[in-house]
């Protein structure tokens, strides 16, 4: 264990944006949530945390994002100690989707969501955002989506088409005036992902991608993540995006990965299997 820790520390030292945990354990009043997790994700990598419901996927993801405390173990995000410098970690790890935390407001339009997030990222004394700067952000998102579409177009004939990309596009109208309640599940997923990426964080965590009921949507979601990772890498090689996704089944990832081929490949793909050794005590969220 000692030597592993040292190795871990050295590896972490070499890459500022890599994330690594060792003997990462969490237990609550009703027993262990997860136990003795070792995980190391290089910058630009994709980690898939897979496990059945109640296996502690959400807690693990939130603990990696600096938003939940673990009981024991060591963890680092680059130079930061995950346990001791949670505040700084929260600034670098965005949460793409966690049920109950990132829920969208049905009575907000897309633009209002973007504006809200935009304002939140500004200092406290600037509680507004002008329409023009909001428009700039929306244009940037649109451009990204456009690039994604172009990327798909470039791919050899496969599982994905431009239509798929359009289905994922949450910017239905020019000004984002459409209400969230009118969006599809996939569009909401991408809206949440987009909002998380608005601060250009090095790491994004996405919990339970399985909440997308349609298998095709899940595949499109995976593809979207990979394409966005690729776009970030292309545009800004020094600031790659690391994504940590949890799911019960990663079958759709394989489809997406295969379809996109080597054109949209993360630096590394780490798969972590969480054992379902704990009695599920949570109420069903659905």
């Amino acid at each position, binding site marked *: 264990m000692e030597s592993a820790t040292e190795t871990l520390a050295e590896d972490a030292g070499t890459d500022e944006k890599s994330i690594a945990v060792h003997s990462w354990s969490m237990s*609550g*009043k009703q027993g262990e*949530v997860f136990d003795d997790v070792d995980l190391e994700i290089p910058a630009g990598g994709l980690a898939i945390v897979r496990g059945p419901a109640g296996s502690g996927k*959400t*807690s693990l993801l*939130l603990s990696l994002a600096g*938003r*939940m*405390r673990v009981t024991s173990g060591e963890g680092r995000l680059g130079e930061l100690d995950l346990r001791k410098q*949670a*505040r700084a970690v*929260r*600034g*670098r*790890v*965005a*949460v793409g989707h*966690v049920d*109950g*935390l*990132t*829920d*969208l*407001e049905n*009575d*907000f339009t897309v*633009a*209002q969501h973007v*504006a*809200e*997030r*935009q*304002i*939140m*990222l*500004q*200092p*406290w004394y600037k*509680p*507004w*955002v*002008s*329409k023009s700067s*909001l428009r700039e952000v929306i244009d940037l998102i649109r451009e990204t989506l456009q690039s994604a579409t172009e990327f798909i177009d470039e791919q050899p004939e496969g599982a994905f088409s431009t239509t798929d990309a359009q289905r994922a596009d949450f910017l239905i109208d020019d000004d984002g005036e459409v*209400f969230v309640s009118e969006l599809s599940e996939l569009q909401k997923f991408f809206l949440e992902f987009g*909002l*998380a990426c608005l*601060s250009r*964080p090095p790491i994004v965590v996405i919990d339970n991608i399985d909440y997308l009921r349609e298998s095709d949507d899940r595949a499109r979601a995976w593809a979207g993540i990979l394409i966005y990772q690729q776009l970030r890498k292309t545009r800004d090689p020094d600031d790659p995006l690391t994504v940590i996704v949890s799911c019960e089944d990663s079958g759709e990832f394989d489809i997406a990965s295969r379809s996109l081929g080597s054109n949209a490949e993360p630096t590394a793909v780490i798969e972590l299997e969480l054992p379902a050794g704990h009695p599920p*005590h*949570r*109420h069903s969220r659905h």
Partner: protein
Amino acid sequence: MFSLPWLELSRFKRHTITRLAMIVIAVIPAIYGGLYLASNWNPTDHLDQLQAAVVNEDTGAKKPNSDGESLHAGDELVDEITPKGEGGFGWADVSQEEADEGLAEGKYFAVLEIPSDFSERLVSTGGDDPERAGLQLRTDDAHNFIVGQVAGTVLNEIKSGLNQTTTAEYVNEVYLGFNDIHSQTEKAADGSAELHDGTVDLHDGTGELVDGATELDKGVGTLRSGLIDLDKGAGELKKGSGDLADGADTLAKSTTEAKNGSKKLADGAGQVADGTSELRDTADESTKKAEDVKRKADDVVDGARPKLEQAEGDFDDARTTVRGDMDDRIKQLQEDYPDDPNVKKLAEDADSLGDDLDKAHQRASDAKDEAKSLEDKLTDAVDGVMEKIRTADKKIGQLDDGAQKVATGADDLHSGLIKLDAGAGKLAAGAGDLHDGAVQLKDGTAKAKNGADDLKDGSSRLVDGATELDKGAGKLVDGSGELADGLEKGLEQIPTYDKNDRDHRSDVVAVPVDADKVKDNAVDAYGEGLAAFFVSLALWIGGMITYMVLNAIPYRALASSASSTRIAWAGYVPGLLFGIAQVAVLYLVLTFALDFSAGAWLWTLLFSILVAASFHAVHQLCVAALGGVGRLIALVLLMIQIASAGGTYPVQTAPGIFQIISPFLPMTHAVNGLRTLIAGGDMFIAAQAAVVLLLMTLICLAATVVVCSRKRMVTLTQLHPSLSL
């Protein structure tokens, strides 16, 4: 433009019901505060619907010091209160029985009784035996306690009104007295100023007096030494004049004797002169005769002998003549002038002449004898004799001249001596007088000397006295100056009053404490006094409602990478905007529906916004930290604050525990500040309250930030909530 409040509010924009909810939030404090204040706005305004009775039994009285003027104070009082509706009551002038009955039945809430000696006692204040006039107001608490309280105030007003008029009359006289004192003191002040001037002059004079007295003293010293010298001189004069008088007497006696002697001398000298004249004549004749003799001798010579014989005869004759007559006369003259050398010489000469004549005769006889032998010798001898005769004649002539001169001189001497004698007499008399005077002078100078000694003592004492007088005059100057200043100052402090002033002051002094009229920062109505409390209460409830509807913190943001401060602020600003809206609506309602007015409008509004801001911060904190439980706590806080904010009665009247917690609760400061601003009092209190509220706001916001920061960390319980409110 997108802003957080706008985004928060836009949640409610989509549906009509949620839009209404926003309006409700803004309006609820206005409804609450407005309704409560409306019901309590001005209860005393409707007291005129209550009836009160006045029973007047006053018989009136004559005013003292007036020509039969009489006072009917009871009637005046009734006239005054009946139409005016004193204290808000409707007054009815009724009999005692009616009043008693009415009070018992509840028809009248109060009965004012004016006793029969009311006027009499009122005018007694100006007389020798002053007595208080009594009024009685009866109420019946069985009907209404509060009305009884109000009635008490009415009685006080009536009482003080009456006291004012009676006391004013009296005090007016006192103020007139002040005017007299003032004018008299003014005269005294003028007099003392003149006195002061006079004493200054006096002081100058005494200064000069001291100088003069000193010089006088010196002069007296000189005078005294001079007088001593004078006295000495007078003593010498006395002695000298005594000697002079003696001398003069002796002189006078001597001159008398000399005068008498000179008379004899003059007589004698006259006689001598006569004698010498005769002698001269005789000598002349002798000479002639000698001539004749000579001639005869010559003749004798010539005639020789005969002639010598004759000559002998002649010489005999001559010798007889000379020896006879002349010798007697010379003897006489010698007797008269024994000391005179001429006389002596004359005598000697005459004697020798006689001798010569004798000898001549002898010789002639001899000659005759000899002539015969010596004729020639005779002639020569005759010639020698002749020569001697002639010389004698000449000398006799000279003697006569001298005797004449002597006679003349003796006469002159005599007449001179007469004058001298008279002068010496006068001199003696004068010297006597002089002596007498000198004696008197001596007495006088002795006395003067003694007097000068006394004078010296006196002048020395005068110098001492004058010096002391000068010192005293100096003190007198100081003293009179102080007196003048003091009187001047005193005069300033003695007030004077003209008629208006006197009347005004009499009124003031008659009722020095204007208990019924002076009310600091008066509010127009009872409700306006309560407004501070109800506005605070309404805003608290507004805050509760606001965060019942709004999210205390934007929960979505917790998952984002935004800072906690940002998130807390994002939850607070929409609430604050609602608070401002609540304040605006509330004051609109109060102003237009209840005729409310604040002393300092702008500050009242700003302060109310601060109140809303602090209350909303408290509610945000409660809800953010504890959710539904936080809302319960806000409700509990409301109840505690109602009891301890001192909104209706001062908090000092509440039990101790409320007084202790009072300063820690925001509503206390909200009420204090608002009350000051609405009534318009000491702005320091309002500023103090504002600072406290601002601090509370900041503390709550900071606490909310901490809460947000802690909320960022998800717990298992949060992921799996067991209780949802």
